[in-house]
């Protein structure tokens, strides 16, 4: 039997893996579609962009759905508190995502310019809005979410949707949006040719620059902007039962959430990777090198998510109005039994998923040209 404490750490890592898996795969779906109406100037170019992801976006989206399910199974209190609290933010993401399944499947089924253009913008919204909102949500985690728990562990949220749209969180939203757009742009460089590829390279470079500026800006804001991080008061039993009301939380002494970085300097690798990745994006896109840009964006996405995860650890949802009620990966977690079962399931299926997903990409790989679209006009999206 694995210790409860270790299981809690495993699940912090696994949720991270699912989030990064989501951002890396569905990330280029969202990013490329956010860019599609701008880089694709005619129907064929837009269809080429869409068909680079047509066989894969559905599977990629499951990373998002499974991350939701894993959150429910591993951190039920986080699932409950975050989604009921940030109600309209989540609904906004869902409404934007609704446009994608129908957009992809229905767009090219009718040969009508207005119909197709409308779906193009639908797909653009379906990519851009979730990317922005995820960043805004992360930004608000650093600031604390206004919720509290009563003695029956019922959560009540006292903020509003518009309070989530504060300047710091919006900068974080831009980090996420530009990062995924750069990732999607690099993907289009890999899988298309001609004018579409050249325009994608320009867009990728621009997005890479915005990402670097906003990422560094958000970091500086955290440190110099008097944002106070939280710390768990010691002694704290990391092996204890999941009761989020049984701890003390200190609200001073963790300036700008930087403590973990000074305590464990190795974690600095995360922000360094993000910056290095951003530089590679700009460099690769500038020289029209698709592989280099895509490597850069992959590194940037992974680095940026880990940067936030390491800074907040062990906090998942800090509460701004009742810091004691903050949810952490030690006390907002499922029981030992559930975590054990889920670890076995994830241990079997995550590698399996990676194998067959890779096979699918391998089978469908290749550059999508305008000619290819013309020849397969009735079978492609």
């Amino acid at each position: 039997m694995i210790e409860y404490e270790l299981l809690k750490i495993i699940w912090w890592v696994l949720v991270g893996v699912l989030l990064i898996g989501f951002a890396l795969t569905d990330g280029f779906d969202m990013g490329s579609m956010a860019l599609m109406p701008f880089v694709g100037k005619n129907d064929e170019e837009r269809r080429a962009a869409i068909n680079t992801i047509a066989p894969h976006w559905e599977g990629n989206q499951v990373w998002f759905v499974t991350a939701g399910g894993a959150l429910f199974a591993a951190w039920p209190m986080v699932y409950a508190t975050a989604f009921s609290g940030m109600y309209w933010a989540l609904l906004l993401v869902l409404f934007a995502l609704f446009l994608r399944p129908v957009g992809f499947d229905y767009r090219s089924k009718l040969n009508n310019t207005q119909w197709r253009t409308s779906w193009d913008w639908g797909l653009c919204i379906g990519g851009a809005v979730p990317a922005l909102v995820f960043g805004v949500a992360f930004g608000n985690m650093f600031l604390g979410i206004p919720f509290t728990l009563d003695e029956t562990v019922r959560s009540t949220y006292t903020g509003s949707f518009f309070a989530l749209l504060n300047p710091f969180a919006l900068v974080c939203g831009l980090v996420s949006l530009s990062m995924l757009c750069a990732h999607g742009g690099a993907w289009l460089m890999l899988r298309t040719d001609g004018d579409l590829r050249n325009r994608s390279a320009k867009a990728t470079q621009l997005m890479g620059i915005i990402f670097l500026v906003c990422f560094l800006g958000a970091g500086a804001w955290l440190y110099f902007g008097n944002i106070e991080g939280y710390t768990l008061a010691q002694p704290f039993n990391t092996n204890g039962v999941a009761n989020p009301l049984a701890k003390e939380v200190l609200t001073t002494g963790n300036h700008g959430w930087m403590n973990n970085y000074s305590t464990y300097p190795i974690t600095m690798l995360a922000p360094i990777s993000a910056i290095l990745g951003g530089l590679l994006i700009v460099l690769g896109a500038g020289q029209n090198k698709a592989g280099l840009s895509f490597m850069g964006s992959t590194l940037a996405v992974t680095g940026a998510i880990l940067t936030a995860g390491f800074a907040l650890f062990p906090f998942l949802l800090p509460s701004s109005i009742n810091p004691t009620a903050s949810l952490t990966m030690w006390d907002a977690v499922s029981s030992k039994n559930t975590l054990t079962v889920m670890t076995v399931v994830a241990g079997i299926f995550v590698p399996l998923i990676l194998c067959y997903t890779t096979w699918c990409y391998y089978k469908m790989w290749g550059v999508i040209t305008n000619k290819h679209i013309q020849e397969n006009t009735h079978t492609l999206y």
Partner: protein
Amino acid sequence: MISESVVDLSRFQFAMTAMYHFIFVPLTLGLAFLLAIMETTYVISGKEIYRDMTKFWGKLFGINFALGVTTGLTMEFQFGTNWAYYSHYVGDIFGAPLAIEGLMAFFLESTFIGLFFFGWDRLSKVQHLGVTWLVALGSNLSALWILVANGWMQNPVGSEFNFETMRMELVDFGALIFNPVAQVKFVHTVSAGYVTGAIFVLAISSYYMLKKQDLPFARRSFAIAAIFGLASTLSVILLGDESGYELGDVQKTKLAAIESEWETHPAPAPFTLFGIPNQEEQRTDYAIKIPYAMGIIATRSLDKEVTGLNDLMVQHEVRIRNGMVAYSELEQLRAGDRSPELMASFKENQKDLGYGLLLKKYTDKVTDASENQIKAATKDTIPNVTALFFSFRAMVASGFLMLLLFILATYAVAKRNAENKPWLLKFALFALPLPWIALQTGWYVAEGGRQPWTIAEVLPTHLSASSLSTGDVWGSIIALAAFYTVLLIIEMYLMIKFSRLGPSSLHTGKYHFEKLEAAQQEKVEGAQS
């Protein structure tokens, strides 16, 4: 206390989104299997018409699948947004099957569905066939895990309340998976999906036969649908009967409500074929009964009783009073008292804690509930009898009508004369809504019949909702209803357009409308020269 209107609105929203989702999912389940059967026939026989069938029905499958995915996104997150206390209270058990569904099933289905649509030229025949079967397998596994989760709501096995974390926790994962309610529900529900797919293909093929277009294509589709549909309908009805038996065992209240059985009848109980339930006066007017039938269905015997609603309410009142004791002990435990007597006594009483929580609808101080409040909570323990009674009968009637259709259709297939029987083809075409009537009323019987609980006898519905404002939930209901309805209209438009077009939409040049066009072209050219 959460306001009554937030609970009601949240229930309405959940019902609406679940019922929308359940328009598309069963068709996906059924069509996925039919596609796999058609493609298998293609690979074995080498006849191109079966590949065209796979591609054409696959096109309609895709139009339907898109909305299944869209409406499914809401379902994955809605427990968190609108049922936050539920998510906290039972997430330890309920979340696991949802996450496993993602990892084991939805990934499989969604990853390979892209190859199903776009891999025809990239994969070998056998590889593509494998992909189609994996999509079918994925969608069925998906249903399995969702129904494991749902089965646990009806019959919460393998779990225990933990007063330290204030929630239900998993103690036996095996019991959760092999929950008899979940097993029966799974087969009943996926079979219903197969029936839906079969009726869909049967009805549209009949339309082509009535219009005399693409006959070889329609004939073969009709035959596969008829035989597959007959087998599936028999499975639905048998497993529906098995559900009746399981109901008798673990969900006595739901069973008695479906039957509108107010007083316990001496064994063996009769089955009420028809009547008008009267919840106010707790009786059933104008009842027509079949002697013995209910006793046999629910107890598989002639000597066991099926308990009536009035007797069940007497039992429930006892459990509510005991639940008040359990609640007061829980308060002491939460306050830090850990004396062994208290722990032992709570262990004894905690099975009725859920019944105590029913009082929270009327008072925050459960332990001081008045006699009137206890009476009101007792009355709440039975669901809406009239709605259940009629929904159940609508479901069963649709089921038997479809059975009749499939028997006639299979007979016609055997005699090879379906296209000469316009009445049969019209019957098949107009039967198109039947599976959906059965599905939606069946869903209501299962979930409406679970009320007043979200988790049977553990967590009352009114405690499960999130602490949201009425305005928030109104807003989301309106937005979701508007969005879904627009998407549904678009979906129906495309579905009808492509169904009318038939296999001509594949642009192979072999089918009705393309031949028609080619013939006209020739005529024009002939006239010109």
